C-alpha cells in the first residue's frame, strides 16, 4: 500500500518538476513535448524550440538525476545504518564524500578541466574511491572491524580530507573558490542525458545488492555475534556493504556534489512507514529519497528565481529541523 502510494507520488513529483520552473510551461504542452520526443505522437509542433529544450534537455535529465541521487543516497544510508547498527550513519559520514569533494576541488582549482567537462566527475570519483580505500586500510591497520570502529575511522578520515580541501580552497583563487563552494553544497544543474547512464547502472546494481542482502542486514541489527551464528561472515559482509555503498556514493557525488541529510533521514522516515525490516526499508527509502530530492530541487531553483541556490542548503535546513524532531520523538517514545 505504502509502495503504491509512494510510486504514484513519485510520478506526480516528477511531473511537477517538469512543469514548475522559471519559465512557466503549461502541463498540456509538457505532455505533448514528452510524447513527441518519445516518438509516441508524430504530432504537429505547437510549441517553441525553447520550450522543448527546457523540458527535454534541462528539466527532464535534471529531474531524473534528482531521483537517482535521492534514491541512491537513501538506500546507502539505510544499509550503512543497519550494518553499523548506528542510526546516524550516512554516506557522507564515512569519509566518502570528503574524498570526492577533494577530488573536485583539485579539478576546479588546480589542474583545470584537463579532460574536458568530465574532469570534475572523474576526479571526484577518484577521490571518493581513494577515501574508501584509506578507510578500509585504516580499519585493517587499527584492527577496527567492529561497527563503531568503522564509523569512527570514517569520521577521522573525513576530517583529514576536509582539512586538505579547506587548505586548497584557502590557497586558491577567490572567484574559483565560489565555484567550489557551489559544487560542495550540491546541485543538479549539470545533468545531461549522456551522463545519466552511469548513475543509473550503478544504482540498479548496488540497489539490487542491498535488497538481495536485506536478510543479512536485518540479522546484523541484532548483533555481530548473533549474525555470525546465522551463517553470515560479518566482517567481510560489512566491508563489502561499505565498498558497494562507497562506489555508489562516489558516482552520485561526482554528478551532484555533496547533498547532505538525504542518506541520514530518509531511511528513518521509511522506517516510520514500513517498520524495521530492510526488505521493505530499502525499496521504501529509494522511493522516498527520489521524491524528497525532486522537491528539494524544485525549491532550490524556485525560491530565489531566476537564480538557484545549492540544493544542499535546502536539504540541510529541512534535515536539521527534522533531526531535532526525530530526537524529541525518540526520547518521548522511550518508555
Amino acid at each position, binding site marked *: 500500500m505504502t509502495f503504491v502510494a509512494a510510486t504514484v507520488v513519485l510520478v506526480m513529483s516528477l511531473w511537477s518538476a517538469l512543469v514548475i520552473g522559471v519559465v512557466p510551461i503549461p502541463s498540456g504542452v509538457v505532455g505533448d513535448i514528452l510524447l513527441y520526443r518519445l516518438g509516441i505522437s508524430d504530432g504537429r509542433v505547437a510549441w517553441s524550440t525553447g520550450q522543448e529544450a527546457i523540458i527535454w534537455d534541462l528539466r527532464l535529465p535534471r529531474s531524473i538525476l534528482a531521483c537517482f541521487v535521492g534514491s541512491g543516497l537513501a538506500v546507502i544510508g539505510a544499509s550503512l545504518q543497519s550494518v553499523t547498527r548506528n542510526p546516524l550513519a550516512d554516506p557522507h559520514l564515512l569519509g566518502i564524500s570528503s574524498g570526492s569533494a577533494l577530488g573536485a576541488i583539485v579539478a576546479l582549482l588546480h589542474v583545470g578541466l584537463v579532460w574536458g567537462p568530465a574532469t570534475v566527475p572523474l576526479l571526484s570519483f577518484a577521490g571518493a574511491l581513494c577515501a574508501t580505500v584509506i578507510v578500509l586500510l585504516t580499519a585493517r591497520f587499527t584492527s577496527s572491524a567492529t561497527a563503531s570502529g568503522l564509523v569512527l575511522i570514517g569520521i577521522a578520515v573525513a576530517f583529514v580530507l576536509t582539512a586538505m580541501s579547506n587548505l586548497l580552497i584557502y590557497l586558491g583563487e577567490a572567484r574559483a573558490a565560489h565555484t567550489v563552494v557551489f559544487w560542495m553544497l550540491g546541485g543538479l544543474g549539470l545533468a545531461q542525458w549522456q551522463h545519466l547512464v552511469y548513475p543509473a547502472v550503478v544504482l540498479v546494481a548496488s540497489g539490487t545488492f542491498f535488497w538481495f542482502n536485506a*536478510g543479512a542486514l*536485518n540479522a546484523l541489527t541484532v548483533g555481530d555475534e548473533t549474525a555470525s551464528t*546465522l551463517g553470515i561472515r560479518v566482517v567481510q559482509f560489512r566491508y563489502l556493504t561499505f565498498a558497494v555503498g562507497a562506489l555508489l556514493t562516489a558516482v552520485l557525488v561526482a554528478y551532484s556534489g555533496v547533498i547532505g541529510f538525504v542518506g541520514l533521514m530518509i531511511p528513518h522516515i521509511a522506517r516510520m512507514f514500513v517498520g524495521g525490516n530492510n526488505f521493505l526499508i530499502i525499496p521504501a527509502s529509494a522511493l522516498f529519497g527520489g521524491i524528497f530530492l525532486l522537491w528539494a530541487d524544485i525549491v532550490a531553483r524556485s525560491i530565489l528565481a531566476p537564480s538557484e541556490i545549492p540544493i544542499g542548503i535546502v536539504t540541510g535546513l529541512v534535515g536539521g529541523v527534522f533531526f531535532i524532531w526525530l530526537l524529541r520523538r525518540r526520547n518521548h517514545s522511550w518508555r
Partner: protein
Amino acid sequence: MAARLEVRNASWNPPGLPTVLHPLKFTLEPGQRLVVVGPNGAGKSTLLRLVYRYLRPSSGSVLIDDTDIWNIGAPAAARTVAVVLQEQPAEFALTVAEIAALGRVPYRRGIVSGRTGDEVITDRVLRLLRLAGLRNRILSTLSGGERQRVMLARALVQEPDLLVLDEPTNHLDIRNQLEILAIVRELGVTVICSLHDLNMAADFADQLLVLHKGRMLAHGDAGEVLNTSLIERAFSVRARRRRSPDGGTSYLTFHL
C-alpha cells in the same frame, strides 16, 4: 533430530596472548543436556564460542556428528547449531515475527527469503513459545521474559540439532527462568548451556562441566560433580548441601 557433539582437546588463546581456555574434551550424546558452570571469567563463554563456530580452536577440534565444524561452511553450521546470546537488537524497530524469521537466513538461497516453508516454520515456533499474539509487536516494547522467548524463537526457527544457550536465564524473574528451561527441556535437541544458579543447573543438566580459570575442574553426572569441596574450590565460597523438608531432593546453600 539431535546432534552428537564432541569437543576434542580444544583450547583457545587470542593471537600472541596467554591461553584463555586450556585443552578440554567431552562428548555429548544426541539429546543430552550439558550445563557449563564456573565463576565469571572462567572461560564459559569462550567454550560456547568454540562450539558455535565463532572462535576457531587454537588447538584441537569441535565435531558435530563426527564432522569438524570448520570443515563445513558457516551457513551449513548455522543450519545445525543455533545460539541464544544476550545480544538484543536496540535501535531499529524489528517486530517479533521479523526477528523470529531471521532464523531462516541460513536457509536462504538466491533471492531474499526463498523457501515456501519458511513462514509455516516461523508460525509454528511462535505458537510453541506463546508469542503468536505478540507477532507484530516491536521487540523493545516487550518485557524481559518475552524478549528472551523471542530470541529463543529465532534460534528454534533455525531448526537446530544442537542448541547453545549463553546464560539464558539472566535478568529474568524466577517464573520466566523456569519456563525457558522447561521449554528447552521439551525440545529433545542436544543442548549446551551456561548457567549461574547451581541448583537450577543440577536440576536441568544431564552432564555438568565446571570451569575454573580456563581449565576443566570437573565433568560428569550433576549429582556427583557438585560436591561442596569442589564448589568451594571453584567459586571460593562455602557451600552446604541441605535436604528439602519433604525429604525428596537436596539443594545447596552458599555463604561467604
